[in-house]
């Protein structure tokens, strides 16, 4: 039997505010545990929340980016459950009146087609702390780090509009691209800045009735998400084809061990007893506030892609990749501004640089090679000072901190020899020193002579310590050998 897959996503996006959603404590990542949790975050008695206005603005900006309705009056609710990383015993979130209403996100697929994914809504809420079940402390205890508690989030809830892992990943990447482009999230997946819950169900091909869904929670990389979806779809097909039925449940997927397991079934689900939070007034958003945010909304990925095609004559594909990540787009533009060669800037940014960054698990913002340094390298490639092969060596040296392209080229004596007089002399010397090879060349059938050129090239490049301009040497060599025939 053939099966259709139905996927919906809930995406938690940490907002890049300096302070928490209801307190003045810092949201900076990586501090010592519990050093960024104030009395409010610790839910000390008598403390009260005060809403962070910047978090509201960021949520509205997301709404504007996906062309959503902005709730003129939104409200906070309490979601009640006990857990040590939730100090108040309830999460302050939005249920009935979210700040961002229905919207739309267009995704691009591998075959070049596009698809619209509907957003059901997005709401503001606070993040929980972290439970640490292992580590340096006594193994009889679990540790709680409340630094993250109260970090502002928007939870973006999609309609179940995706039909396979590719679409889900494309959608997730598009959301990543949007929130980083408008600057409301740092996009650092490894630090938990974006986390995905994936709802998956399957149904017989063509059926109108949705199957029972499962939710796999808290995936924090595109790769894990893709694996989790594929495994879950396969699992559901196995279950149904073996005559079983899918249990509505919450599942976890461990990306390291590649193991998925059930966390709790619907029957075990909490009754969260939502009710309006009496400590917070409804959030009233004025038309002026929305207009102001709309005016100042940074360029969106789609608009940037179109501009890159137009302004830099890049292909749709290249422009798409470069514009998907705000930091990469900014880097590319900075390189291009200095070197005035968009094609090479695009190739190097997406190619060598991205590959190297990926290998080292670095974001482009932390690239050891600055945009200015890469531009300097491209200038020397473009003016033929160095060959492509040399360029890779220079790039590695810049990466290692040896300075600018020119400094590396000087220090290592890598300048390409393009002086035709000097090259001609080199060719003549090599031919004179290798009379046997010359005779062999002359005596070979014309059709096979071309193959013999490589031997001369090798000798010449060796003689020039690799600095001879290969294209020029090729031309001179062919000319000189022809004269001998």
């Amino acid at each position, binding site marked *: 039997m053939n099966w259709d897959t139905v996927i919906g996503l809930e995406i938690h996006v940490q907002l890049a505010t300096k302070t928490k959603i209801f307190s003045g404590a810092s949201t900076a990542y990586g501090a010592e545990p519990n050093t960024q949790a104030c*009395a409010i975050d*610790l*839910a*000390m*008695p*008598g*403390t*009260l*929340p*005060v*809403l962070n206005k910047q978090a509201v603005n960021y949520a509205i900006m997301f709404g504007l980016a996906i062309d959503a309705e902005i709730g003129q009056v939104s409200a906070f609710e*309490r979601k*009640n459950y*006990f857990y*040590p990383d939730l*100090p*108040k*015993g*309830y999460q302050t979130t939005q249920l009935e009146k979210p700040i961002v209403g229905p919207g739309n996100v267009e995704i691009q697929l591998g075959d070049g087609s596009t698809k619209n994914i509907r957003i059901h809504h997005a709401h503001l809420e606070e993040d929980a702390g972290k439970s640490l079940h292992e580590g340096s402390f006594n193994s009889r205890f*679990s540790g*709680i780090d409340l630094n993250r508690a109260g970090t502002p989030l928007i939870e973006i809830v999609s309609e179940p509009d995706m039909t396979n892992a590719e679409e889900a990943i494309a959608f997730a990447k598009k959301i990543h691209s949007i929130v980083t482009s408008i600057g409301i999230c740092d996009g650092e997946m490894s630090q938990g800045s974006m986390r995905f819950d994936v709802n998956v169900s399957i149904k017989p091909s063509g059926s109108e009735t949705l199957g029972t869904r499962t939710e796999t929670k808290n995936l924090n990389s595109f790769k894990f998400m893709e694996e989790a979806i594929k495994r879950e779809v396969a699992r559901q097909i196995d279950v149904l084809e073996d005559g079983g039925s899918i249990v509505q449940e919450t599942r976890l997927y461990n990306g390291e061990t590649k193991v998925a397991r059930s966390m709790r079934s619907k029957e075990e689900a909490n*009754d969260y*007893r*939502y*009710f309006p939070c*009496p*400590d*917070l*007034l409804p959030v009233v958003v004025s038309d002026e506030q929305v207009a102001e945010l709309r005016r100042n909304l940074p360029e969106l990925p789609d608009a940037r892609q179109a501009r890159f095609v137009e302004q830099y004559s890049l292909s749709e594909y290249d422009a798409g990749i470069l514009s998907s990540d705000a930091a990469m787009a900014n880097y590319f533009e900075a390189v291009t501004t200095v070197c005035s060669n968009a094609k090479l800037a695009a190739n190097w940014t997406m190619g060598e640089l991205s590959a190297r960054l990926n290998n080292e698990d670095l974001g482009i913002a932390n690239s050891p090679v600055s945009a200015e340094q890469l531009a300097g390298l491209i200038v020397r490639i473009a003016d033929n000072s160095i060959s492509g092969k040399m360029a890779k060596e220079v790039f590695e040296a810049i990466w290692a901190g040896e300075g600018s392209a020119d400094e590396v080229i000087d220090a290592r004596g890598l300048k390409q020899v393009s002086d035709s007089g000097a090259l001609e002399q080199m060719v003549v010397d090599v031919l004179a020193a290798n009379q046997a090879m010359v005779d062999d060349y002359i005596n070979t059938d014309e059709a096979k002579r071309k193959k013999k050129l490589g031997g001369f090239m090798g000798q010449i490049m060796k003689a020039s310590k690799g600095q001879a301009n290969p294209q020029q040497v090729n031309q001179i060599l062919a000319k000189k050998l022809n004269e001998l025939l």
Partner: protein
Amino acid sequence: MHNLTIAELVKGLQNKEFTSVELTQHFLNRIANLDPAYNAVITVTAEQALQAAAAADQRLAAGNAPDLCGVPILHKDIFCTEGVRTSCGSKMLDNFIPPYNATVVENFEQAGAVVLGKTNMDEFAMGSSNETSFYGPVKNPWATDSVPGGSSGGSAAAVAARLAPGATATDTGGSIRQPAALCGISGIKPTYGRVSRWGMIAFASSLDQGGPMARTAEDCALLLNCMASYDDKDSTCIDREVPDYTAGLNRSVKGLRIGVPKEYFSAGLHQGTEQAVRAALAKLEEQGAELIEISLPNSALSVPAYYVIAPAEASANLSRFDGARYGYRCEDPKDLEDMYCRSRAEGFGEEVQRRILIGTYCLSAGYYDAYYGKSQQVRQLIQQDFVNAFENVDLIMGPTCPSPAFKFGSKGDDPVAMYLEDIYTIATNLAGLPGMSIPCGMVEDKPVGLQIIGNYFDEAGILNAAHQYQQATDWHVQAPEGIA
């Protein structure tokens, strides 16, 4: 000195008739000598009080000190006090020492008031008799076999016994007005949002409001001047200028339209209480006020609506007391669930647990609409009743509570009978209106309270009428036997 009003103490301090240190020592002595009979004060902060008094005396000597500089007061133990145990009347917080002050505490500290200690209260402000306190019940100074009312019973009893000239209190469903009535003192619950809730341990956030207790309306005005403030740490606090509440006290009540809700004089009202309240209304009429019978048709729904909304909010507000970060934790928890269950079962008293269960039930899936949703609708109706009434009257008056102070244990087995204690006070909390209780008579040698309800932010109007009444009567100067 303990028979002087705060207004008189302010004058005496500023005229150097006595020092704050003398005054403070006098009240500390009274607490030490008399309070064992009442149990009104949980924590006495003698050393800090005397230091604060000495500092106040310096400020007074320098001149231009604020009104309350050097005046001793007590704080209800629901207000967080930096470095001083804040128990909320519960075993759960018996070991809790806040690292911060409530805004109310901060306001009095800024003004130079001297804090003598923290007063007893019903656990987490849940109760109308002070019998739910972990620290034992407070005894009514007028009749020590009877309750002082609650939840601010400790503050009310302390003021009645002249252990302090004034005290802070809080009111979620009547917790300032009912104990004020039962202890024969004055107490005002301001408009919701007038006094900051920052650092005031939450019972039901949409209903809780801090307010002062003292013997006279004028003293309440003096305390409220200090207590009320806009506070950006409390999102529900309203940014509105605080008037000088003492400035408007001398307006005549001539022509004042007083609404008298017929629903507040129905069956269940003690005859003696009714007579005293009717007499007080007649007195005001005699002073020139006009009495207008009005109807608050949804009054009967206020108790049931309150006992859904308040427990619902409380069930969430009290979730933070989980044994994890502060407060009581059970011995040797076997696992997380055991820590939660036993810490809360052992740390909370019976009434608190009852209300958490009621609230949890009312918010549960399948019950929310029928209970919480419906109660919110009722709340709107009750509020609308008052809005309609205030189109035709300036103030609303009636009894504060149905009967004078009852004996300990007499309602202990019947929570609903206890809940009906607040039948006349709860509606103003649901509507967010200001309300006051002042003494207006005696029944069976126990005080009776007159309740005065005002329109939003008309604390000045309420205090004025109360003050005018007190100018013409002497119920507020009477003292329990052996006290004056």
